[in-house]
Structure formats: structure tokens, C-alpha cells
């Protein structure tokens, strides 16, 4: 039987969920032995499409063909049998099981669970560059190694077509290079890759062909050798690429947040999560913190909010809140947009007006005060209506449960709530994550206007365009300390990304973290690390 030149073909794929069409008549043809990239914005429908290809979801319409034969996948097992493997964006690993156990779970029949399995695992580990002992618990592995384990998992099951879902979102650039080397090597041996990403530079570096998906439908293919990043971006968004712009500087001299010597020990005596962080944010200033996730940004935010007890001092609006509770810090004028709104920002089953009270239950207008701590529900409801109107939250009313709103509207509500206490400091952690393009622009606009009114903003984001566009100054966080400063008006995403690995800070726009003596030599670091020279950034 002649082998089809196409490893995978999707035709007419349509998938609907309540209230939204996730995939609409999508077509995709992936040649064997090719790295085929699928690009699209957040919410365009890429992951749904891959879930369909991997058998986690079933399409409402359309066909899937593997090696020329039409197939129907009822579960991931069917997809695995057809030779398709998926490396998820959020790794599916059990921390308390060993590497070997994670790899052979569900596939024990292939090579048993004893010596034969171990041998095979060792072979595959070599292919992907995984060097740890398979008997080690997964919880002790770093991100890049966990990803390697995920790749070995799919290879172990005989996958020839591998789906990589946003694989580089958690890697530092050096690890990205290693991943790409692995992918190229495997491609030479005949493996086929589907590479899902919205990082256009990387896509152009690794892909042989690109399919662009926008608003649930495929809008066309592109040849990475000839298309420019700009063109790709415009295909993805369909119009002029939005980006946040803040024009004139509104930075004042008034200090709103001062953090000194913030320290947080690591779990079980490992590397400290925060190793002495100092920073200052002034009224009218947006200070952006750049860094690959897992380098202490979450801990920094939690330490400032008082969710974690850290050593050092935190001063907000002149008040020392280092020993204060989270509620007291909020009362001192901090608003907090958490990075994961469903877990940290909202009560899913409660109506919107109840969510309005969260974080504000001790202050007017929500609180009526007094010994019993009475709440004013009417005031909460009225203020919720104000937020709905002012921040364009699409909802039938304030009595709807928060879970019924879309992600973007939920985030708009959170933003509105956190600005409602007239804060002096706003901590915005990945404020537009998982939010559709329209809502994203709205939130940027809100932040820019608040900044102009004198709000101090600490912005944490993995979206370099967002950081560069919104910030007045940027600091880079690496392994629990601030290692570099950057000037947003001149720095490029590449320079910033490079600094995020802890590499040398060169270039006019970057300066080492001078004056604080933070030695950026790190014994356990990537090795090619040079001491920053203050003054190197002078223009």
C-alpha cells in the first residue's frame, strides 16, 4: 500500500461549545518528515484542534486522516495506536512517581515493567538528551528535563507524529535551542512534528511550513523562508497588530512601593526562591518584571501581598507593611490582579456582586463597619454595576455567577474590582493571560489611564510586547534576584529574552543590576555567565 505523503490531514474540522465555535471548517495537511507549525493568537482554537487530533475531543464535523486512511479517534488510546503522540503545554506528570513510572504508565504491555522497559527507556532518553536516572522522582526534575520525559513518553509508545503544544513557553532560550536541535535530529530520522506556538520568531526558525489559525478557522499557509514575522502576525490577527503604547512619561518622584532585601528560603533547603530583591516603584510609574516563569516572580508577588512570609522589608505609601497581614496590606492601598484568576481571584459559584466583596470585606463601600463587621450588599451590587459599565464587562447583570462569564470578562471584572478601592499600588500579574484580543486591548487602556492618574504599577508578564509597551522601566528576574535593568524605549525582545537566561548583559539598552552588589555569577548557572559591568549601558 503506497504510503501517503501526508502524515496527517484534517479537513472541514468543526467543533462547537456552548456559546462559541472553537473550530470552524479547519483544513490542515502535514507532510511526513516535516516540522509543521500552527500559529494563532490566544483563543484562536489551536489547542482545541490538537485535542481533536489526539482524541481527547471529537469533532462535530470533518475528517481526520492518518497516512491517507480516514480514522476516528474515540480516545487518546486510539490516537496513540495510530502513531500520534502529544506533548502537552501543561505537563501531565505525576510528581510522586518516578521518571520510569511516568513513562511506562498505560503502556506496560509494550515492554513490561522490568528490565526490558528500562532498556528501551534508556535508548529513547539518549535520543532526546535526557540524562537523569529513571528511578528518580519527577518532582525533582527541572522544566526542560520534564519536557524531555514527556517526549520520551510519546516515543515509548511508538509515535511517529508528535504534537508539541507551546513547548517553548517555559524554556529559557538556551533550552529552546537544545529542543530545536533534538527536533531537527528526530526529523532527520523520519519523525513528523506539529509545532503549536504563537512565538513567531521561533516558528520561523524551526518550521518547514506554517498554517495560521484565526478565530477558529484556518486562514492560510505560509513558507517560513519567505514570510516575515510582521506578515505572519497580521495573518494571525487579521488587522493591524495591537500593541500597548504609553507615550509621555508620567513617572513622579513619590515612592509608592519600596522593597528591600526580600528573601524567601527554598523548600527543603534548596536554592532560595527570593535571594535579596530590592526595588522601588514611583507614583505614575509602571515597573515591568521580565523573566521566565519559575524564577521567583510568583513568590515576589506573594511576598509583597503577604501571602507568603518573607524576610526583608516592604513599604507601601510610606507604611511599613512587612509584618502586616494580607488584608492590612490591601487596606494600605494595594490592588492585586492575580496570575490565575480562577484560583486566586474569583469565587466561581458566587454572583458578581459577592465577588466584588472579595478583598474588600473590611472597607467601605462594601463594609458597613461596626463590631459585627456588617456588609452592605446593596452598595456592593451598585458598585458592581458601575464596574460592569465602566469596564465593559459583558454580562446580563451582577447576579450572574462568575463561572458563567468568559475569561476575558472575568478578567475585566477583576481589574475593575482591584482599581475600585482607589489603590496607590497595583500589582498586575500576567493581566492579559488567557484573555481574548479585544479584552486585552481594553485592559491595557485601563492600565495606561490609571498610570496617568498617578497609580504605581508592578507588572509581571511573560508577554514581552506587553512588558515593553506598557512599562516605564523593566527589570529582569532570574533565580530569585533582579539581575538586569532595561530601557523599554530601546530594548528589543531578543535582548530581553537573552537577559532572562542570565546571560551577559550587553547592548545599549541593558544595564547590569548595579549598586546593589548582586553578584550575577551563580555557581549553578548555565556557565557562560559574566559579571555585569555597571556603566556599560551608558549612552
Amino acid at each position, binding site marked *: 500500500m503506497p504510503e501517503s505523503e501526508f502524515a496527517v490531514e484534517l479537513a472541514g474540522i468543526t467543533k462547537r461549545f456552548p456559546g462559541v465555535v472553537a473550530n470552524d471548517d479547519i483544513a490542515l495537511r502535514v507532510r511526513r518528515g516535516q516540522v509543521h507549525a500552527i500559529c494563532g493568537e490566544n483563543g484562536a482554537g489551536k*489547542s482545541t484542534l490538537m*485535542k481533536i487530533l489526539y482524541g*481527547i475531543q471529537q469533532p462535530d464535523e470533518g475528517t481526520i486522516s492518518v497516512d491517507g486512511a480516514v480514522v476516528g479517534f474515540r*480516545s*487518546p*488510546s486510539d490516537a*496513540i495506536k495510530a502513531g500520534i503522540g*502529544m506533548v*502537552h*503545554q*501543561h*505537563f*501531565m*506528570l*505525576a*510528581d*510522586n*512517581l518516578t521518571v520510569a*513510572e*511516568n513513562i*511506562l*504508565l*498505560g*503502556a*506496560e*504491555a509494550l515492554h513490561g*515493567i522490568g528490565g526490558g522497559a528500562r532498556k528501551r527507556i534508556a535508548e529513547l532518553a539518549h535520543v532526546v538528551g535526557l540524562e537523569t536516572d529513571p528511578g*528518580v522522582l519527577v518532582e*525533582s*526534575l*527541572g*522544566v526542560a*528535563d*520534564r*519536557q524531555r520525559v514527556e517526549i520520551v*513518553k510519546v516515543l515509548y509508545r511508538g509515535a511517529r507524529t508528535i504534537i508539541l503544544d507551546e513547548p517553548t*513557553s*517555559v524554556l529559557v532560550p538556551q533550552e529552546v535551542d537544545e529542543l530545536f536541535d533534538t527536533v531537527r535530529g528526530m526529523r532527520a530520522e523520519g519523525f513528523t512534528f506539529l509545532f503549536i506556538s504563537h512565538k513567531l520568531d521561533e516558528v520561523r526558525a524551526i518550521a518547514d511550513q506554517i498554517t495560521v489559525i484565526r478565530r477558529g478557522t484556518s486562514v492560510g499557509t505560509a513558507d517560513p523562508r519567505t514570510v516575515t514575522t510582521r506578515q505572519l502576525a497580521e495573518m494571525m490577527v487579521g488587522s493591524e497588530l495591537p500593541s500597548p503604547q504609553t507615550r509621555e512619561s508620567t513617572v513622579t518622584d513619590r515612592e509608592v512601593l519600596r522593597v528591600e532585601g526580600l528573601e524567601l528560603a*527554598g*523548600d*527543603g*533547603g*534548596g*536554592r532560595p526562591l527570593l535571594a535579596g530583591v530590592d526595588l522601588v516603584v514611583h507614583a505614575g510609574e509602571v515597573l515591568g518584571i521580565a523573566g521566565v*516563569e*519559575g*524564577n521567583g516572580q*510568583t513568590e515576589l508577588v506573594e511576598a509583597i501581598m503577604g501571602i507568603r512570609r518573607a524576610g526583608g522589608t516592604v513599604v507601601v505609601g510610606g507604611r511599613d507593611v512587612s509584618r502586616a497581614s494580607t488584608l492590612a496590606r490591601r487596606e494600605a492601598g494595594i490592588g492585586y490582579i492575580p496570575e490565575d484568576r480562577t484560583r486566586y481571584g474569583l469565587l466561581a459559584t458566587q454572583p458578581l456582586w459577592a465577588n466584588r466583596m472579595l478583598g474588600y470585606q473590611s472597607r467601605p463601600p462594601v463594609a458597613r463597619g461596626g463590631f459585627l463587621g456588617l456588609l452592605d450588599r446593596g452598595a456592593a451590587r451598585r458598585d458592581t454595576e458601575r464596574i460592569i459599565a465602566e469596564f465593559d464587562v459583558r454580562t446580563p447583570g451582577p447576579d450572574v455567577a462568575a463561572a458563567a462569564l468568559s475569561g476575558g470578562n472575568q478578567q475585566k471584572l477583576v481589574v475593575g474590582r482591584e482599581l475600585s478601592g482607589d489603590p496607590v499600588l497595583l500589582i498586575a500579574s500576567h493581566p492579559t493571560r488567557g484573555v481574548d484580543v479585544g479584552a486585552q486591548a481594553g485592559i491595557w487602556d485601563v492600565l495606561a489611564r490609571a498610570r496617568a492618574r498617578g497609580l504605581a504599577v508592578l507588572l509581571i508578564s511573560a508577554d514581552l510586547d506587553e512588558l515593553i509597551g506598557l512599562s516605564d522601566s523593566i527589570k529582569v528576574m532570574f*533565580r530569585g534576584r533582579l539581575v538586569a535593568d532595561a530601557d523599554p524605549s530601546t530594548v528589543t525582545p531578543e535582548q530581553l529574552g537573552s537577559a532572562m537566561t542570565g546571560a551577559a548583559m550587553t547592548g545599549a539598552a541593558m544595564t547590569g543590576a548595579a549598586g546593589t552588589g548582586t553578584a550575577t555569577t551563580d555557581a549553578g548557572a548555565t556557565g557562560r555567565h559574566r559579571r555585569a559591568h555597571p556603566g556599560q549601558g551608558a549612552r
Partner: protein
Amino acid sequence: MTATAARPTVSPPASRRRVPGWARTMLVVAAGLVILSVTATLTGQLQLTSRGTTQAAVLLLLPILFAGLGGLWAERAGVVNIGLEGMMILGTWGAAWAGYQWGPWAAVLGGLIFGALGGLLHAVATVTFTVNHIVSGVAITLLGLGVTKYLSTLLFLPVSQNPRQSPRVEGFDTYSVQPLSDGLAAVEAEQRVLLSDVAGILGGLVSGLTPLVVLGFALVPISYLVLWRTRFGLRLRSTGENPVAAESLGVAVVTYKYIAVVASGALAGLGGAALTLNPGQLGYLEGQTGGRGYIGLAAMIFGNWRPGGLLAGSALFGYVDGVQLRAGGEAVHALLYGATILAAALAVLWVARRQWRPAVVALVAGAVVYGLYQTIDTVPREFAAYAPQLVTLLVLAVASQRLRPPAAVGEEYRKGEGD
């Protein structure tokens, strides 16, 4: 567990012990024997290490052990089983009902089946209907109480004239491992320090055994082998660690949870059978479980969700139970003395490891216990009867922090909710 919140590579926790696990266990056991022996000699309460007390301890630890194993199987699959007590009650009833008609082996089977039915109910509620695990467990315990009372009135009353008690159930014949048993008895009779104590305890472990005792102890290594060394066990544990990942790899998560919870009920039922077939008190008696289902859970927590540790926990609770039953308040009083020695030993250990705060706490605790020991002559009967429960509380208070339960235990799992 999500990649986006991953930590940079953490070096594996520095091995605090260069001694392998099994050797460490032997050391702890030996230390325990020494402390008991010293206590027995110094307080004159030779019953603490006697064969009779140990036999009683074995019989009393058995239901706790079964319950703990039941808890282990369920929690390793991610399901909290607070209903163990109710399943155990069902087991006592089923064992008595089958037992008085068809003998002890039928009793074992009867207990197993009735307990498994309770487990099935729990599985349906928690796995299929994603009811909160604790709520379901409490409901099943209530239901177990009600059903057994009803059935007792219906089926036992006519025969035994007492709705709270079953007719006489025939128990197993006990046997001893000879010639070991006699040899140890001889050594024990010689009243030599330490040697006789060890002989007494070992003697209790090899005499007066019933098949159920052997089954119970055998299930400990069997559980370990099945759960950690077979593909079935791996899949089962994965459903308790990361069910979404397991499902994505084609593991039938729902099936494994069902199996685990039904097995959990069956084990609790065996625990009930152990109570019914206890040579000292044969038959079903209302209220005989006395919270042992929950103590079994405590043993499981104490054992850090591993079969070996579970056995140790059950042994501890069973021993205290055995002492208070066989030797009464004075012996429990003597245990206070032993606890003081233990506290002192722990304090020394922590000082050697430079962990000052725990050492101070141990010293203070030891002083308090010793003061208590001196002030009273004997532990009042009312408190002695509940010594195991008190010990449970204390053990949990001390040990709860450094534990590693299965990562997804207690979570309500809904199929297809990946990502």
C-alpha cells in the same frame, strides 16, 4: 505540577540517612523493645512484655490493620474513605450472620462481601456522582449503623433473643508455631532482663494465631508488591497522583478507582470479621467497632501511606489497646514511664542532629508525662479504656507535618476535564 509554575532544577533532597530503609526499621524496633523492657523491669509491670499481652495486642491490632489497609488502597487511588467505620460495621454483621450458620471461614467471606458492598456504594457516590468524599463516608457510616441494626432485629433477635447481639459464632482454632513457641515460653519464664521481654513479645507473635491473623500480616507485603511492583498497581496509584495525566495515557481511571474503593470496603469488612472472630469475644455486638475504622485511617497517616508504616502504626495502637485490656490501669500507668524514656531518647536524638526546637519540645513533654506518672498511681479505668484514641491524637499531632499523601487524594475527578 503544571509546567508553567515549575521550579528551576532542585537538587534531590540530601539523603539524611546513609542507612538503608530496612536497617533503619530494625533499629527503631530494637529501640522500642529496649524501652519497653526497661520500663517493664523498672516499674515491675511485667505484663507489658508478656506473651498474653502481645497476643491480645495482635488480636486488637488486626481490625485496625485491615482498616488501615483499606484506607491505603482507597487513598492511593485518590479517594478518601471515612466510611471505613461503616464498612467495618457491615463486615462485623456479615461475618456474624454467615458465621453462626456456616462456620468461621464463611464468616470471613461474609465480612468481606458486606464490607465490599459498602465500598461499592461509596465508589458510586464519589466516583460516579463526584460527591464530596468525606460527606459520602459519613453518610455510609450512618447507613451502616442503620442497616445492621435493622437486620439484627430482623434476623438475630429471633435466634439470640437480643437485637444487639448475634447468636454464638464459632471461631477459628488457634495454633502456635512449634517448637518455637514453647522455646520462647521457656525463655520468658526465666525472667531474664531484656531476653525474657523479647521472648515474651516474640512468643505472643507466634502463638494463639488464627488464619485471619496470618492473612492480615500477609496482606501487608502483598499490598506493597501489588501496588508498587505490578502494572495494575502503577495504574491504580497514578489515578491517585494525577488522574488527568493517567487518563491521557489511556488508563481507565474510573475503573481503577472503583476497584480500589471496593477493595477498600472489602478490607474494612475483613476488619469487621476480625472483630467478630476475636477469640476473646466471638460474635457481633452492637458498637463493637469502637472507632477502629478511624484509628485505621490514623495508622495509615502515621505510616505515610505505605504498608510498612501502616503496620507500625497499627502495632502501636493495638499494643496500647492490648495493654489496657489485659493489664488494666496500672499497666497503662507504667506506659507513661515508658513514654518519658521515649521523650528523653528523642530529645537526645534531636540534640545530636542540632534540631533544637523539637528537642526542647520533647524534653518539656517528657517532663510533663513524668510529672503525671508521679502524681497518679494508676490511670483511671475510664481513661485507660480510651488510651488508644488518646495515643492516636498525640501521634497525629506530632507526626502530621512531614507527610506525603497521594497528590490528588480527595479531589473530585471528572472524566475529560484535562487542561
